[in-house]
């Protein structure tokens, strides 16, 4: 997706990086919260390994940052569009294209953060997911789960940003259901991923990919595309 839609256009690359940076900052705030909360209330290491509350807060923070970055994007695009451009018809960032690029930034960095260490460990001594002496370090299908879920995460972030962006454009009062959809979808995927450690990985994978398809459908509709053929428009 990056090569086709973002790379040819320089301004998009800039906003792609900006999107990634926003995700990073949101993660920073979330983990600050995790550290402060858990070091303040730790009654033993058991509490620190329970991620439920922390991930909930992090998801909320991420959505907040998505809103913030969409607002920033709107300002920047307004500035860019107001520049009298000669010789070029569009700045390539108008409307949903801009949201898409930002979402792709979010998604790429999220995917990288979640999967790069896993891939690096795959090369080194030992492998994640092996059962050693009866202690399970994750299921044997660790890699597959990681890979599929990271990919789903990327698509999801893209789609959610587009949806949220268009809902902001329409004004929150009219399209609150879109924002709610995004929040609900995100909480759903993260929530089911909390089950990953406790045995079955299928709830998360299935729900994640269903959410991907649903979010993509809503995003396409919001962006005004009728079918896959019109994605060629985005190329410019």
């Amino acid at each position, binding site marked *: 997706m990056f090569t086709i839609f973002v790379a040819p256009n*320089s301004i998009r690359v800039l906003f792609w990086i900006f999107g990634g*940076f926003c995700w990073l900052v949101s*993660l*920073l705030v979330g983990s600050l919260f995790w550290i402060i909360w858990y070091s303040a209330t730790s009654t033993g290491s058991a509490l620190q390994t329970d991620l439920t509350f922390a*991930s909930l807060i992090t998801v909320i923070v991420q959505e907040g940052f998505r809103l913030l970055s969409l607002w920033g994007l709107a300002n920047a695009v307004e500035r860019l569009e107001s520049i009298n*451009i000669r010789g070029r018809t569009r700045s390539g960032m108008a409307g949903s294209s801009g949201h898409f690029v930002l979402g792709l930034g979010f998604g790429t960095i999220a995917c*990288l953060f979640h999967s790069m*260490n896993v891939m690096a460990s795959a090369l080194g001594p030992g492998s994640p997911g092996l059962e050693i002496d009866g202690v399970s370090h*994750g299921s044997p299908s660790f890699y597959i789960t990681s890979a599929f879920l990271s990919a789903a995460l990327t698509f999801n972030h893209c789609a959610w940003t587009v949806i949220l962006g268009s809902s902001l454009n329409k004004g929150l009062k009219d399209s609150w259901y879109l924002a709610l959809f995004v929040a609900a979808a995100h909480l759903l995927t993260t929530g089911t991923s909390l089950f*990953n450690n406790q045995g079955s990985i299928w709830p998360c994978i299935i729900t994640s990919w269903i959410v991907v398809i649903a979010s993509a459908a809503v995003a396409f509709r919001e962006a005004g595309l009728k079918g896959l053929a019109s994605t060629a428009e985005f190329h410019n």
Partner: protein
Amino acid sequence: MTQRGEDNPAGPVGPVRRTDVLPEQTQTRQRNQSNPVDRVSESSTSENESSSAQDTELKYGAEAVINLFIPVTACMIFVIASVQCLSSYSGQQKQTVSFIYTPFHPADDDSAGTIIWQTVANSLIMISVIAVMTFVLVLLYKYECNMLLGGWLIFSTMTLIFMFGYFYLQQILKVNNAALDWVTLGIVMWNFGIVGIICIHWKGPLFLQQCYLIISAALMALIFIKMLPNWTTWLILAFLSIWDLIAVLCPYGPLNMLLQLANDREDELFPALIYSSGAGIAVPTVMVTTSAGTFLAPLLGMAETSDPSPQEEVQVRQPRSQRSSERTRTDERREGVKLGLGDFIFYSVLVGKASQLHDWNITLACILSILVGLSTTLIILAFFKKPLPALPISLTLGLIFYFTTTYVIAPFMDLCIMKQVFL
């Protein structure tokens, strides 16, 4: 690095200079030589001209930013790859040899107080060496000791490319347990080095010059990563961003004086110290220069610059109507945004040091923060149109994110990844 492509014959100077100081001739020359895009914008009415000029500048600004992103990213990737693969750079071995500029080597089991004062002392020594070298460079340039300057530069480029290149090659061979005979080695190193020197100091394809500059910056960064003690590196980076601010923005800062001198003499700045993106379109942005003097050859304590003999340049530019190939070559080099090589080096030092921890989250966070810092600097540049230091914002962001990622984000993410919780 000029704004409108073939700016004034001196070359890279900020638009401030252009509007103030330029004589009539050079302005008409600009009009004659402008490329099609400029012609379009210049054909508008005079009152629109200044605004459209600014528009074109801002629009092409994005491409200039990307033109700089690519080499910076390439340099960082090279350094990270070397740190990951070559054990000599990855901090696992105890470092016995080190710079004479950092005489204190805190051992791991020293008390916190000892480590602190030794680190501070090391960093102060290093920064003062850099500052002194920069001043010496400016003085040499001011009093026109061109032979000395030129010789110094060429000598230090030679040292850098040959010695550090050879050391790097040694490491590659060691890691792969491969043997290479002296004859092949001699031929390879000789060719590599000589072509490098020719490209950087004399004439050569722009792309090749850019490659060599990136390679030499990366080699330098690797040496810094290898030789400097851990905490000293971080403190030096912090001090450097402060020094950079002072050197470029204060009126008596050495780099500021250097730029003024170069501008007054209408000279082109040292190619070996500056990476030119040579965009090929009239990228009307200003030079971003920094830490020109910090590109040190540590073992010899010499700053690196290169001074293409100004006389030749002037002669080439004199016949205006002539579009000789030499002119297009030098013009190509003068177009595009320029970034000092010191910036490349210290960005790569930050990122390389971060990747020594072998945690990709930290490395990614640092790369991202540096790129965001660089784009912010370039955006500010587009508004202020004077030479700006490129180090402070990027390094500050990079350092902040390095430490926060290591201590705050990494434990959280490790836990998430282990439990396979996807945020």
